[in-house]
């Protein structure tokens, strides 16, 4: 390959890379503007991880179908149940389901009485 050709490869090569990444930069700028314009809708959209594979039933039951924010703050309401019993129930559920307590969320615990 003659030197002149090698030099053309050098020039065209740098040009192509610069053009391609400049194009990407431009697209990113446009995309960002669009996204930020419609951001309020989209931001709420990402769905929680929906595992495709079997998982413990009891735990699964608690999961709603509708997409929701993960790990929201949780206040636990107790009905006719003292704290001790509630703690034991939570520990048992965590144990049975194999889900660490930190990832379980209990909304309320009620005695069936």
């Amino acid at each position, binding site marked *: 390959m003659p030197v002149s050709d090698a030099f*053309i490869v050098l020039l*065209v090569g740098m040009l192509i890379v610069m053009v391609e990444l400049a194009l990407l930069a431009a697209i990113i700028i446009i995309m960002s503007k669009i996204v930020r314009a419609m951001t309020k809708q989209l931001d709420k959209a990402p769905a929680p991880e929906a595992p*495709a594979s079997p998982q413990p039933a009891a735990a699964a039951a608690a999961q709603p179908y509708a997409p929701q924010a993960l790990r929201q703050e949780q206040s636990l309401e107790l009905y006719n149940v003292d704290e001790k019993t509630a703690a034991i129930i939570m520990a048992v559920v965590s144990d049975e389901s194999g889900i660490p307590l930190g990832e379980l969320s209990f909304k309320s615990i009620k005695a*069936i009485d």
Partner: protein
Amino acid sequence: MNFLLTLQEIVLSSGFANLSYKQAIMIVVACVLIYLAIVKGFEPLLLLPIAFGMLLTNLPLSNMMHPELFLKEPVDYNNVLNKGGLFDLFYIGVHKEIFPCLIFLGIGAMTDFGPMLANPSSLLLGAAAQLGVYVAFFIALLLNYVVPGIFTPQQAASIGIIGGADGPTAIFLATNLAPELLGPISVAAYSYMALIPLIQPPIMRLLTTQKEREVKMDQLRTVSQAEKIIFPIVVTIICAMLLPSITPLIGMLMLGNLFRESGVVGRLSDTAQNALINIVTILLGISVGATTNGDTFLNIQTISIVFLGLVAFGFSTAGGVLLGKLMYRVTGGKVNPLIGSAGVSAVPMAARVSQVEGQKANPSNFLLMHAMGPNVAGVIGTACAAGFLLTVFK
């Protein structure tokens, strides 16, 4: 060599200059599927890799997949290795059924058959929920009267299995009987699985009375570890004896379950459930998605498969519920027919639907564990249905 000429060559050999309208449509379809997987949470573990494979294979000149290399038997693997792209190499694992079987190994290790063992009549519900498989097969063949030659019996069987709501089994059967339809069948199967909470409830309510839906079921007995250990061995022997063609799938499922229940190979069980199934899921998803290039995907067959898949899911749901109603009668009202619909598997989504519908009818109702029985039985049922169809049509 010349500056402008070189530039021109680069431009002419770019994808922009070679994009066909079918490829453009497929790229849009892939983006829609990616959207559904990420934003709507449609079975993303498989649909996201599948959709990305679809995207890459339809980028012009990307040259990563050549499904035609696999369509003539015997396959010339030296040719595949020399001419094939990256995804052709991954696809060998699909074509030779390695990937569906290893996914079943992982699913076996994740599945607790306890609720089914506690209530063996679950198995009948899991069998009844295969109705859609055969009905969709039948209707697919009837379509030949509308569009002559649209589906061969092999293709119809592969489409029917969508009704089993078991991805790996569907991929296993389609690879064996109708590899040319693998793309649309898997996309349909995983999409409808994600739609189960929308598809099933109307059918369940239509076929059951309020009184039936209110039935509270007795608590399940505890199942001993010994039963859980013996079970996978027994199932392997019985199923493989009756339908030898399904041995690879059912054998790996049950080996995974034995890993889980034996309690002595925790590290194998863990790897089967995590590293191994994840690696295989990535490679299988991408390469299955990559089989869907514009020419094979955008046609009347694909549209029919979308329609037939819905039919299959519907009839499977109905089959389970109807047998549930029969059991309700026979047991004098001890069985809630809503657990029948869980027989379509799609573990654990269908069981959750039973739970939710049961609670709507009777807020103190807790059907989930009862529905898990038919739910896991449905996996075995679909494998048996696939084994039957393989025996008849291969």
